[in-house]
């Protein structure tokens, strides 16, 4: 199934670019945003894994990943302060 390899390659490239922004990001909010995108890409990879291997074990992981992204970004956004 060549489509799986293509989609996996696209997702890897996207994760690399998002991690580049997470490392470079000028502020902590940029980093949180980039890590949120990384979590979305991880969710996409979980779905891709379910489709390729024809199982449904990752659905609970998908929900867990979105919960972690939500809690993480809300917490960081809540406690970010103005350092100027």
């Amino acid at each position, binding site marked *: 199934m060549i*489509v*799986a390899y*293509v*989609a*996996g390659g*696209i*997702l890897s*490239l*996207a*994760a*690399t*670019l*998002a991690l*580049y*922004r997470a490392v470079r990001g000028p*502020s902590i*909010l*940029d980093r*949180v*945003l*980039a890590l*949120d*995108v990384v979590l*979305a*890409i991880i*969710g*996409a990879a979980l*779905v*891709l894994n*379910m*489709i390729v291997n*024809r199982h*449904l074990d990752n*659905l609970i992981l*998908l*929900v867990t990943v*979105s*919960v972690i*992204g*939500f809690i993480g*970004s*809300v917490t960081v*956004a*809540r406690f*970010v*302060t*103005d*350092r*100027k």
Partner: protein
Amino acid sequence: MVNDVVVSVLLISGALLSLAAAVGLVRFPDLLSRMHAATKPQVLGLLLLLLALAVEFESWVLVPLLVLCWVFQLLTSPVSAHMVGRAGYRTRHLRRDLLTLDELDDVVARAAVDHGPGAHRQRNGGHAGQEADGVP
């Protein structure tokens, strides 16, 4: 056969949405425009991939679970984006020269006029001072 084509198209477009978000994260100049790019794969990309999963498995039992996953993401992702955008506005992580319209600016200015002296007066005089303020 048709199913495979549909699954392939949905998978590739979902992955391309993630790639578009990542390219936007790298290329865009400030926090708000990066947020505009970053929220695409969280909702639409997940929708496309879950549709691919549903088409691949061809079972109606699966659909409520997938709808649950998607609705959960749909509920949480705007809230976190709102929090991040609000924190970014408050801590001035945005480039004012790129904004065409800042609707929050008027609100902030009005709140400063309304509550700025009022808070000061409340500290000094309390309610009596506030009511006497309307009469010249």
